């Protein structure tokens, strides 16, 4: 009797473990199988890869922020921030540094471009607030860190996106992001959202959030809210398309990116 019970318990325990482990194994191997099955169909992309990184494949959405325009009209930046906050139902904690949620915000040059030399700064740079947002890196450390693929890069357009349904709130991505672009909902944000935009959800407590390059507006053929609000200070588009407006701006102007030495290759450029 006793012996049988032991045996039963052992078998039951082993099966339970196998049951828990099996889905993981299936998922991991199935993912590879899917990728392998898809590869031949995507022959174009594969061919481009063979020729090395010089030929960029697909769309890569990016932003060029012209600080000369914003320095001349600082109110444009405030307008852009307000537009972003309203469109995305971002809660307002009244400047409380602990809880604040920021998708697009402003900070000084030294704070934004920390690794640029600033022994002496021009008056324009000293007196102007710079916009800060998620850089939608080509090589995003947050995506690497996320243990559930709740944050991921959209292959279609290069946007680093979030799935708030899946985020477990471990905040590994916040530690991984070298740009401080991510915010965590330390409590239910809803009471702090002033007015709902009914075309976009809010977030729940316990998940991380950040700028999504207005994916939801792009899907409807609109520009990102900040781009629309700031009347030409920001150029938005596909930098892999040599004929796009943004490519022309990048060809013409000298631009800088935040912390280029980290190898993340940000998609937000500044003209100073």
């Amino acid at each position, binding site marked *: 009797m006793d012996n049988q019970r032991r045996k039963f318990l052992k078998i039951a325990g082993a099966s339970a473990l196998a049951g828990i482990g099996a889905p993981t194994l299936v998922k991991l191997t199935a993912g590879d199988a899917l990728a392998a099955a898809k590869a031949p169909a995507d022959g174009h992309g594969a061919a481009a890869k063979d020729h090395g990184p010089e030929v960029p494949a697909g769309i890569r959405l990016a932003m060029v922020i012209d600080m000369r325009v914003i320095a001349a009209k600082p109110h444009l930046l405030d307008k852009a921030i307000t537009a972003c906050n309203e469109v995305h139902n971002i809660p307002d904690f009244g400047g409380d540094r*602990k809880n604040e949620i920021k998708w697009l915000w402003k900070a000084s040059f030294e704070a934004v471009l920390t690794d640029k030399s600033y022994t002496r700064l021009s008056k324009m740079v000293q007196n102007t607030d710079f916009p800060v947002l998620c850089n939608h890196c080509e090589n995003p450390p947050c995506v690497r860190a*996320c243990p559930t693929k709740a944050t991921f890069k959209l292959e279609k357009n290069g946007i680093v996106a979030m799935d708030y349904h899946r985020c477990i709130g471990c905040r590994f991505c916040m530690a991984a992001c070298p740009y401080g672009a991510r915010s965590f909902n330390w409590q239910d944000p809803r009471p702090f959202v002033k007015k709902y935009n009914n075309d976009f959800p809010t977030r729940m407590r316990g998940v991380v959030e950040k700028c999504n390059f207005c994916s939801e507006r792009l899907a409807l053929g609109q520009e990102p809210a900040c781009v629309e609000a700031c009347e030409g200070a920001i150029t938005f588009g596909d930098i892999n398309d040599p004929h796009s407006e943004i490519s022309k701006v990048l060809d013409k102007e000298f631009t800088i990116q935040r912390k280029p030495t980290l190898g993340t290759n940000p998609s937000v450029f500044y003209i100073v």
Partner: protein
Amino acid sequence: MIEKTLKGKPAYWIWLAFLGMFMAVGAVCYARQYLFGLGMTGMSRDVSWGLYISQFTFLVGVAAGGVMLVLPYYIHNFKVFGRITILGEFLAIAAIVMCLLFIMADLGQPLRALNVVLHPTPNSMLFYDMIVLNGYLFLNILCGWVILTAERKQVKPPKWIYFFVYLSIPFAVSIHTVTAMLYCGLPGRHFWLSAIIAPRFLASAFAAGPALIVLISLILKRVANFDAGKEAVNKLVTIMIYSAMLNLFFIGLEFFVGYYSGVPGHKHALQYLFFGLEHHGHVYNNLVPFMWTSIIFMIGSIAMLATPAIRKGNEFILGLACLMLFTGLWIDKGLGFVFAGFIPNPLHEITEYIPTANELGVTIGIWATGFFILTLLYKIAVSVEHEIEE
């Protein structure tokens, strides 16, 4: 063998009730946090990991420290550790349980924790941490239980168990290596972005784990009539001295790289920890007294452990030194290491972190849970030893 936990002297029950009280406090605090959100803690947008993750990091080390008993005993056939190897394995179990509880306490959406398994992501270090932590927990339960059962029946343990015993050794190293990799693979966090983090973690683990085991065996000698043996303790002391010195050496190397190279990013966090960091006319130095206490405790305990009094068996000095070493290492890794990584933040602003009372309640509750489990496990181990002796 579980029935051994149900019989004990009044002191045993009072001790369990004492721990149970803190566990209850922890449960209430956690319920509050669960209902409100992690806003009940002192963490913020800038310092997004706090006491929970730092305790997790430290306790992974305590768990890995158990290998300093397993390795000499099973690989080098160092018989002296025979009596206490089980203490190392059971300490690892309790420490890993605490680690897992701290991770759960830290999640913003704890009910979704299984997403890590349902959506496995091999590019995330947390995925591997999940595997090695659970694997090490399983291995220690298995090895500890099978070997103790065999010991109780006074037969040789089955041969197959040695496969798992040997496997547990690389697992012990891997849990702390992978935990270090959570930190040292993040670009833009200069304090953590150092190849020396994993070895430093291992060095401090191999000092902290044995320090706790020596401390506990001194207690067991008094309250449970269980003697680890003088030779075993002396060998552990030697391991502790070398490991603690290595840890100090590694900290020294971090200082050298930061201050000699003069690269601001490498200096800032050290400056914040040990001297206070000035920013816009305000000096941020909350952790300075803690860090110097840590350094003094580490150096002081090494000096004490190296004195002849220890070898002659002065248990008071030995106990005090172990306590100091454990506390010093706890401050170093269980407070300073994690908090300072967020200072300054990626925009070179400074937000200091001060845990809230509720957060401390949860933290103490989890520690109490760990010691509760440890007490039960050690009760089993010691009772079996007594049974054999009878």
